């Protein structure tokens, strides 16, 4: 007997069902949308070139949005009513409406656009000027951050970084923006709103993802040294290096803890924010990548790139409580979760 060999390929994108298409055509019939307030995740699926909109309360995918060009980077920005994606293959930055989940602008960027972060409505030095919103996109191949003005959607500046910038983070008070420069083993800081270089901080080996903790410290996941460097931005100095699992990718915060996705270990490494000491490790799906807490801090959401799911973790009980299916190759590299007020949901039918 000859046994059968099956080749599974990454082409399982669902698209819109016929039922959804009918509903889209009839904006008055949107009663199927969940009515409760809650958090939604916008997960870039790199291998299927689309984005899954997940209702985290109902634990279900409510929309699959086509995003050509293998998107990874994402920045959900409620104050601008938008989410942004970066597709490295087509070198395209896109803006989508949070209300309708339709594309509202796109911009080709040179080099290798990768990570993204948004500084929304930054107060300007001169009180005369209106606040500006800036989009930062790392150029993996050319050691720079592109700065795009969110209003005009035009490239307005370049900031020189170390080699292979990947993740980008903005201070909670929007006083700085920082990039993880992977091949330079450093983090580059720039002031806001001036965009002047402040300094570079050496970290572990091959920093990739980074995130700002509630206490203002910057946590940088070092893929090469299996650790997180914790930076005090005020002193531009590393105050601790916390050991985590193999190939750490992203960091999120809730319940006084940091949660780190370990790509090769298929785990979340968890440590306390007060003592910066490892606390425990949880099993999640395969190749965990993007991770973030909901704004209320009730849930940690982490993507599983190989499993095509997100894992949901309770940050208080430290239990993995569920999974939601996504498209193929979920990355969610950036800030990908937004809270919607009661009665409001994303992806409402456009007019």
């Amino acid at each position, binding site marked *: *007997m*000859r046994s059968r060999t099956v080749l*599974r390929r990454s082409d399982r994108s669902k698209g819109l069902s016929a039922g959804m298409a009918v509903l889209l055509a009839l904006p008055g019939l949107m009663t199927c949308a969940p009515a409760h307030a809650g958090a939604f995740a916008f997960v870039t699926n790199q291998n299927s070139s689309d984005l899954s909109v997940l209702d985290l309360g109902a634990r279900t995918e409510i929309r699959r949005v086509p995003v050509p060009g293998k998107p990874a980077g994402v920045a959900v920005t409620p104050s601008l009513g938008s989410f942004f994606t970066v597709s490295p293959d087509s070198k395209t930055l896109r803006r989508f409406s949070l209300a309708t989940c339709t594309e509202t602008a796109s911009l080709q960027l040179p080099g290798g656009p990768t990570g993204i972060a948004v500084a929304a409505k930054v107060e300007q030095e001169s009180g005369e000027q209106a606040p500006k919103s800036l989009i930062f996109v790392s150029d993996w191949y050319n050691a720079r951050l592109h700065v795009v003005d969110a209003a005009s959607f035009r490239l307005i500046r370049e900031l020189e970084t170390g080699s292979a910038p990947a993740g980008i983070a903005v201070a909670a008070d929007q006083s700085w923006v920082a990039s993880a420069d992977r091949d330079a083993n450093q983090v580059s800081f720039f002031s806001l709103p001036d965009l002047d270089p402040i300094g570079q901080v050496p970290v572990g080996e091959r920093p990739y993802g980074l995130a700002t903790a509630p206490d203002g410290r910057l946590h940088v996941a070092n893929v090469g040294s299996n650790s997180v460097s914790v930076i005090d931005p005020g002193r531009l100095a590393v105050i601790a290096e916390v050991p985590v699992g193999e190939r750490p990718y992203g960091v999120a915060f809730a319940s006084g803890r940091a949660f780190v996705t370990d790509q090769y270990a298929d785990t979340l490494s968890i440590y306390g924010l007060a003592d910066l000491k490892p606390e425990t490790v949880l099993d999640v799906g395969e190749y965990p990548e993007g991770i973030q807490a909901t704004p209320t801090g009730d849930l940690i959401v982490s993507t599983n790139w190989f499993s095509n799911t997100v894992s949901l973790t309770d940050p208080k009980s430290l239990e993995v409580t569920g999974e939601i299916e996504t498209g193929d190759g979920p990355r969610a590299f950036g800030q990908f979760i937004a809270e919607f007020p009661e009665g409001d949901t994303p992806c409402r039918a456009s007019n």
Partner: protein
Amino acid sequence: MLPTFSHLSAVLADREPRRKPFRFAWLAVLAAGLVALSGALTPSEAHGPTRQKVTLTTEVPAAPADVWAVIGNFQDMSWHPAVFSTKGEGGNDIDATRVVTLEKEGGPTISEVLYKYDATKMTYSYRITDVKVEVLPVTNYSSHLTVKPGKDGGSLIEWKGAFYRGYPNNDPPENLNDEAAIAAVSAVYQAGLDALSDRFAKK
């Protein structure tokens, strides 16, 4: 010509099942004359923007324990028809290493390290620490072999890989792009699973 999915299917379908499994993966890349590129690709951990994944499975009419007895030893990859020898240290412990020599004495080599091993679940994971892109056009490659219970007491063998293309910089040449990486890894897995299918086929 791009090695598109249909091209890959044709290669896999037309290929003789056992003796020349690597003809496509190696010779096609060698013929492209891209050998000189490998020296310029620094640093070694650099990679392209999009990680690729391949999952291949096969069902065989043999008990999982019998299949695991053949493929469950990280220090012995002789079950794969392209492998000439396996030499390593550390047995099946985490961080065990092996150097797989392909084809013949003095043939191309792939250096690998074991980073997960669970005999109870019959699964292990390893990654490549050193390979030339003209041997296998990938970087940052990790792989997972698992034996699961199959139909009628048989086994499902699953081989999964995650990797970036061989060319880590922007705008890759065709023979080191994402499609070439997927084609090469798929060919390696297919050859190994075909050999296991033959080995465990009911006589």
